[in-house]
């Protein structure tokens, strides 16, 4: 593909121009304790045009927020309900390839079948600018092995690949193409040596990494061949802190509750997840799987087995955030090795 090129200075100009075209410009910035986190850098904070590592949370937090109002309620019994629409236009800048893949999986999940209106609202007005990775972000990430990085294959509107003298630029959608045409004065055609350099950087990325045979893994899990001791160990290690489901870029589960003030209020949804015992507890107290290890098993099976069958790829994108955050040292990466190695007869 004929890639474009932009200098670091012109990228600054490009970003400043783009900021004026949207309501919120979600980009990475240095925050508390040197963390890199996404925030609305149009209105607060200083954007990092390029950065090492990954953001502490994925853009999921802006598309499926921790709590989100579904609609307003006026009057208790027989009251009126009206949707709350989020029509803000957002440009996401500096999204990593792993999170880009996560976004395309989440988009399919929420928009296929019965459409999730609040998610659709936000996606319709969102633009994604992906920033490919030059080197592995942490020893816990395994994007190369699971196939989500270091460059995004799809799911972005524009993708940037940092090289020494600037950035290679490609569009991944009609929307991205239109933006690049609009600001075409800022871009020039890349040279063969630029392309060569980018290829070398990407080739050097995690040289030792061997692809995970995730189809075989999914089969092992589907046929229930993982040794019980592997699940037992995970069950003992989990302290139900819910860190994993909070940082995971593809966790989509939620609960719904009403927040009332007298006879008016809102119905909100909030992020929820399988580690909690109450997640599957029914009215009356019955629970289909009372053992805690089965709750984490549900998490792993969803990411590594069910979604391979549904989408052709695992919905664990190898970002390593859950491994980083787990106080019990549960590692989905280690689980993959254990599962592949410890197949019971």
């Amino acid at each position, binding site marked *: 593909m004929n890639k474009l090129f932009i200098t670091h200075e012109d990228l600054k100009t490009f970003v400043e121009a783009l900021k004026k075209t949207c309501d919120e410009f979600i980009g990475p910035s240095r925050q508390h304790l040197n963390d890199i986190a996404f925030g609305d850098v149009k209105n607060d904070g200083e954007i990092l045009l390029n950065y090492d590592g990954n953001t502490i949370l994925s853009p999921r937090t802006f598309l499926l927020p921790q709590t989100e109002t579904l609609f307003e309620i006026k009057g*208790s019994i027989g009251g009126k309900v009206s949707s709350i629409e989020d029509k803000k236009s957002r440009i996401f800048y500096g999204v990593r390839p792993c999170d880009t893949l996560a976004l395309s999986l989440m988009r399919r999940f929420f928009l296929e079948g*019965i459409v999730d*209106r*609040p998610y659709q609202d936000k996606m319709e007005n969102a633009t994604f600018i992906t920033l490919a990775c030059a080197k592995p972000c942490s020893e816990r990430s395994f994007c190369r092995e699971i196939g989500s990085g270091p460059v995004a294959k799809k799911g972005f509107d524009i993708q940037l690949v940092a090289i020494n003298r600037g950035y290679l630029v490609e569009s991944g959608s009609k929307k991205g193409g239109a933006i690049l045409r609009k600001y075409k004065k800022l871009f020039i055609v890349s040279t063969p040596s630029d392309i060569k350099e980018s290829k070398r950087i990407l080739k050097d990325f995690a040289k030792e990494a061997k692809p995970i045979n995730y189809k075989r893994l999914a089969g092992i899990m589907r046929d229930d061949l993982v040794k019980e001791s592997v699940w037992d160990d995970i069950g003992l290690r989990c302290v139900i802190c819910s860190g994993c489901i909070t940082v995971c870029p593809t966790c989509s589960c939620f609960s*719904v509750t*009403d927040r009332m003030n007298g006879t008016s*209020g809102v119905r909100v949804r909030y992020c929820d997840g399988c580690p909690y015992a109450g997640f599957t*507890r029914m009215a009356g107290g019955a629970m*289909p799987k009372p053992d805690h290890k089965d709750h984490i098993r*549900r998490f792993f099976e969803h990411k590594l087995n069910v979604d391979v069958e549904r989408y052709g790829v695992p919905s664990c994108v190898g970002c390593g955030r859950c491994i980083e955050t787990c106080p019990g040292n549960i590692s989905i990466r280690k689980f993959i090795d254990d599962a592949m190695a410890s197949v019971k007869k």
Partner: protein
Amino acid sequence: MGSKMTAKKTMDEYLPKNAVIEEILQETADSKTLTLRPIDKGSTILKYRPGQFMMVSLPGYGEAPFTFASLASRDGRFQISVRKVGSFTNALHALKERDIVGLRGPYGNTFPLSKIENKNILFIAGGCGIAPLRPLIQHVFKNRKEHGRIEIIYGCRAPRDIFYKNEIESWRNNPDTAVHLTVDEPDQSWDGTCGVVCVLLPKIKLVPKNAFVFLCGPGIMIKLAIQDILKLGFKEGNIYASLERHMKCGVGKCGHCYVKGKYVCTDGPNFSYSEMKKMGIDS
């Protein structure tokens, strides 16, 4: 007026539509049957088929899934049965006739109505598990000639816990039909069978080959009853259970009811035993 067409607006699936409670019947000590009539324009709720469910919404209390417990009447009314088990059902029990509830749906799959034509059918229900099966039972009796022999096994804790008492008695009047009742804790008035639903299985006079079975009840009942009916020669693919799981959205998004790749709300709630085996569950 703009000349440009505006983009087609997506329906907000999470917005409930109002229905009025027209009648409240005290079914048992802790259960009521409510007759509802949708009153909001654009309500899709009456399109339901036997086996489906809806989300019932009460401002301030949230939502919960309920199965349709009857066929819709010609004038657009239907029933739900509600057992008092938590804060939401307590709030539903506190409502009076003419009060309003919100509804979303219908959701979920239907019982395989075309497959069961001309077939023998066995229903096995426990407690309030009779409610999800009732629309199907009403359907087969409404179209009696198009179905084979019908037997209904219904078990409850005590005689006072039996749902739809008068209607169940009227089911006995149908040709080539048998209704068997059993209770765990008989009282003085009870001269019928005692014990779990499985004790009634030897009484059935219906040829299992090609027959269909529909079950709903407590998990343990479904599990044990399936074990026993398989021994009688019913086919795994012809045994359907209406399953219960915790649900928050009803539309396959919230993740609570998910079991090994299936969403009980959108792929179910009615699963054949062959499907259940693939999902690794027995109830």
